[in-house]
């Protein structure tokens, strides 16, 4: 089940483990989890719009705002994005994961 249709593509367990290690309270853990959640939404929406022909943007945004958890949105995008949609999102998530994990190292 997904609250957002792209949840099915998210597997950032390693990031969650790192958050657990450095958080001293559940509130702190939830705060960081929420920041990452916002980051994920902006990056994935950007990735989708970048790969979806602009003529479909408004229709997609209408469908998304009507029900962000609609599993049919994946199908909608698969039919309109030239590249493999699932692979595209997975690559973006993997890239984001590496970027976030690098933040856990002291500079």
């Amino acid at each position: 089940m997904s609250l957002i249709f792209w949840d099915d593509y998210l597997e950032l367990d390693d990031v969650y483990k790192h958050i657990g290690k450095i958080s001293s309270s559940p509130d702190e853990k939830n705060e960081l989890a929420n920041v990452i959640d916002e980051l994920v939404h902006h990056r994935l929406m950007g990735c989708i719009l970048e790969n979806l022909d602009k003529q479909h943007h408004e229709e997609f945004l209408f469908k998304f705002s009507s029900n962000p958890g609609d599993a049919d949105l994946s199908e909608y995008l698969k039919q309109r994005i030239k590249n493999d949609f699932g692979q595209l999102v997975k690559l973006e998530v993997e890239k984001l994961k590496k970027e976030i994990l690098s933040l856990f190292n002291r500079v």
Partner: protein
Amino acid sequence: MGKLPADIEQVRSKLKLKNLEAKQKFQVSFPHAHQYLLEKGLDLSKIRDYSSKLLTTSVLAGSLLFSPAGQTKMLPSPLEIVNKFQKDTADNSVPAKKQLIESLNSILPDRPRPLSQDEEKFLEQVFDGVLGIKAKATLEGEHLNTTYGYIGAEQHLRRYPGDSVANHMGYSSTVLKEGIAPGLGAWGYFAPSKEALSDDLVDTEKWYAVVQTLYLPDWARRQPYLRDWYKYRKVLILNTVNGNAVVAAVADSGPAAWTGKHYGGSPEVMEYLGGSKYKKGKVILFFVDDPQNKVQLGPVDYNQIERQNLIQV
């Protein structure tokens, strides 16, 4: 030499900065999309809250907003299933667990999604009739965002100040190797000291569950009521693939939605549900309606259920 881990303040600052950059980049790259969402009153940062509220409204209205067309199966009669179950287990023709899995497969979609009220009511009757456990999707007006989703493996929790994994005596080596979580559960320590840790609390930690209270649409607004309501709340967790079931107590909040999971289980819960290598799987999770506190935490014993049915017949 390996890199040193950053502390919480550093990570928080860097994450917030990265988040801000992502928002700015989105606004600059897709001003029309940003404007469209603004006009709809939608903040992408809060999209999960928005979706959660939509879902709650849809469940209350009895509709199935999140179910794509063609994914809703016709529901058989729960009474027929329960009667068949009692007859077959009494004459030993079909094992109870096998029957339950077949019943679940007859109504559950392959891909987890929020269930409709009808589907949840059906399951409540099957659980009561087959397992003898009064389990509810909605209890005292409370309902999780989903009752059908993925569960993931959690570590042990610290039960009192100074607790370590070595103190979890009597646990199998498999569950001990999962280790102990560095932070505390959402309700802190189970007891103020080792001496104050009762047998009940030992069991609570041993059979604990994690649910996503953080994504409940009214979580912040209805404090401290919801925090108290969920603390050690008993839940029935049933592995929809093999039928293994446990009664667990909610003792932590999570996991984050971006882990691809909806619930968490203690090492014992996970080992019982799916074996020592079980890290993630599809489950049903309902609240246990147990006002007299009679339902014990731990595995649901199918052999006992079959014996009871034999006695009844």
